[in-house]
């Protein structure tokens, strides 16, 4: 089985530049508008704190469970989730069901919007200069996170320190 890649967010690195939002709206709509982006930045401006929020690609996606028309889901034979806009009736059940706030309504079309990973080649990752967004196999992401967490605990001491 091919390793499953996921969108990894390292918010500590995010500078809040919004390149991800701009390129996302361009890729999906051909225009520039953060409100049309599938990845959104949460900004705490006075603290200069920025956190990108995007679909978690749940194994049991509540947005798909509650969708009465089957609009939220995969297309046959394709591995990446989409919104089948032709089926979407704009009932917003998915927006309310998503625990991450990662599903929104398209401001003009009246259909749901969520990340589709650009069908396997996410544009936002390619423009993230500070490296806050990565697209990598899940186990690699977990391994890195685990290691970083252990290092942060201070268990890794220099050989000199360890001798004492």
């Amino acid at each position: 089985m091919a390793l499953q890649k996921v969108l990894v967010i390292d918010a500590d690195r995010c500078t809040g530049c919004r390149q991800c939002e701009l390129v996302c709206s361009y890729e999906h709509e051909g225009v520039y508008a953060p409100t049309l982006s599938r990845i959104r930045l949460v900004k705490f401006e006075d603290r200069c704190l920025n956190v990108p929020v995007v679909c978690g690609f749940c194994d049991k996606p509540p947005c798909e469970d509650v969708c009465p028309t089957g609009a939220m889901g995969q297309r046959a034979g394709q591995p990446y989730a989409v919104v089948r806009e032709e089926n979407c009736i704009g009932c917003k059940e998915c927006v309310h069901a998503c625990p991450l706030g990662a599903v929104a309504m398209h401001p003009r079309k009246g259909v749901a919007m969520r990340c589709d990973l650009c069908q396997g080649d996410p544009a936002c990752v390619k423009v993230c200069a500070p490296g806050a967004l990565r697209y990598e196999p899940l186990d690699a992401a977990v391994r890195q996170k685990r290691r970083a967490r252990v290092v942060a605990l201070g268990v890794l001491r220099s050989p000199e320190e360890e001798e004492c």
Partner: protein
Amino acid sequence: MRDIVGDILYVDLTQRRAWREPVAPDRVIRFLGGRGMNASLLWELCKPGTEPLGPENPLIFGTGLATGTEMPSSGRTTVTCRSPATGWYLKTSAGGHWGGELKYAGYGYLVVTGKSEHPVYLWIHDGEVEFRDARHLWGKDVRETDLAIKREIGDEDIQVAAIGPGGEHLVKFAAVMFSVYNAAARGGAGAVMGSKNLKAIAVRGTGALRAAQPARYHQVARACYESLLADSGTAGLAEYGTSGSLNVVNELRLLPSFNFQRSHLEDAYPLTGQYLVEAGYLKRRVACFACIIGCHRYTQIVRGMHAGTFGGGPEYETLSALGSGCGLLDTEVVIKANELCNLLGLDTISCGSVIQWAMECYEKGLITARDLDGLELHWGNGPAVLEMVRRIAFREGFGDVLAEGVKVAAEKVGGDSYQWAVQAKGLEQSRVDTRSAKAYALAFAVNPRGPDHLHTETFAEFGLSPEARALIRKITGDEKYANPYLTDKRPEIVRWHEDCYAVTDSLGFCAFTTTALYGITPELMAQVFSAATGYEISEEAIMEAGRRIVTLEKCYNVREGATRQDDTLPWRMMNERSPDRPDPNAINSAEELAAMLDRYYALHGWDPKTSWPLRSTLERLGLGDVARELGALGKLPDEREG
């Protein structure tokens, strides 16, 4: 191209009226956007002799042509008006995220005239404009104001441009603060906003911007992105911010210290970006809209007497103006002073400048602690600096004198104090010792707003990177001119940078992308303009548009009465040798400046006697209407002589 340019929103605060007008396409082609369009609007709307703090002075906000799109580092907003500090042309700009939001709300430009009866703020959202009572916000600092507006409207994604108490009290160097910590700082635009009883401008939009040629525009954006990341200076600027270069500036004998009495410190390390990282003050690296560099800082003091201090910056200019300039090497005091200036809405450069001038007055006995309500304003007195910043913003005691700027303050204190009032045209010089940077000297002297680096940054003359040296070779034909102590070829270097900087500002790019780092070339900017508007423009033509903008800004000052005598430098730069560089040429002598000015005016096609642009020059640039108006005022030089 209408949505990417954005309409002009006119607001008359006296009549409480707002209306919109589209920008004529030929105006976009002539003036590009942002700074250029603002220059055109100010020329049209600001009649000669307009009182800077009167209701007629138009306060113009202009977004860059590319602002709001993915074009890297293109989110800057230009603010233009007649300056209350100088009485001359004022262009001042800021980063942050406000400009993009204005575009999404449907506007590229905002022109505010009149004066409200009581404090108001504007709430602009998706084509709607509301005049909202701001009496409850008057007196609040910039951060409180930002948070209060977001809370009362109920949307944290609102972008706010606001003034603090500094602007309310008409301090001549009050800033307009964008996105809390990004200042359009120089020349007192915040005081103009205060004079209109306009506390803030809140914007939010859900609109979308479409380039005329979307696929090509996206491709150009990717090319700009790669080119900018490849510049040898980009990584360092991201890592250590603007003050990452402070030590280099110090070693070059350029770091203004003790009010420009010194240009070098034994140990400037506590004021460097490297130290901010090492000592743990830096908590986050922050970017303006669409910027892939991210040179802005978020710092915080966790322990000690200044615990609880947090916010954007401090930047290089601030660390020099409120640090080295005041003989102050205490990092935490500078971080605190920076926070105060941000919250009170003051330009850190001018604020530090007036305080260090007062310190020199104090050390020389022209003012005493009695004049300062007990404050002992000797070099390096951190608590006194912090107290003085506060008094300036509220115009308390001697703060009221300093709030007028150093030129007026020196007139009031008298004696020889004008000699160390480091200003020209009424603006305090920004933080580079021009005695050892000759292109800077010329650029500062001819800058329509006064001696600073933000009309024409000529950083390339130091030759500090391969890209800088290559640019000097491109302009002059030889890398050997990458030498700041030479006067040769400085006029040529300044002329190129003037045009380039005007284009940079007009498209919304940050100067760091074109004239400090060099990833975004004029050739790329021509591509940006062409793909955005669908109007094909060449590198030469866009640089000529830059020259048109520079010339129109000059003409504004000519119309207000400027002559060659106004193109000058501070007394100290012209009459005292730099003590830290043992070289007879470490001074901006009158002869040296005159020789550079002669050549500079000749390159422009301006009259060397008056500095006024010739009619033929104006007509060649398509400014025939400007020539007619200046001619009617008797302000066109006689061409038959020359």
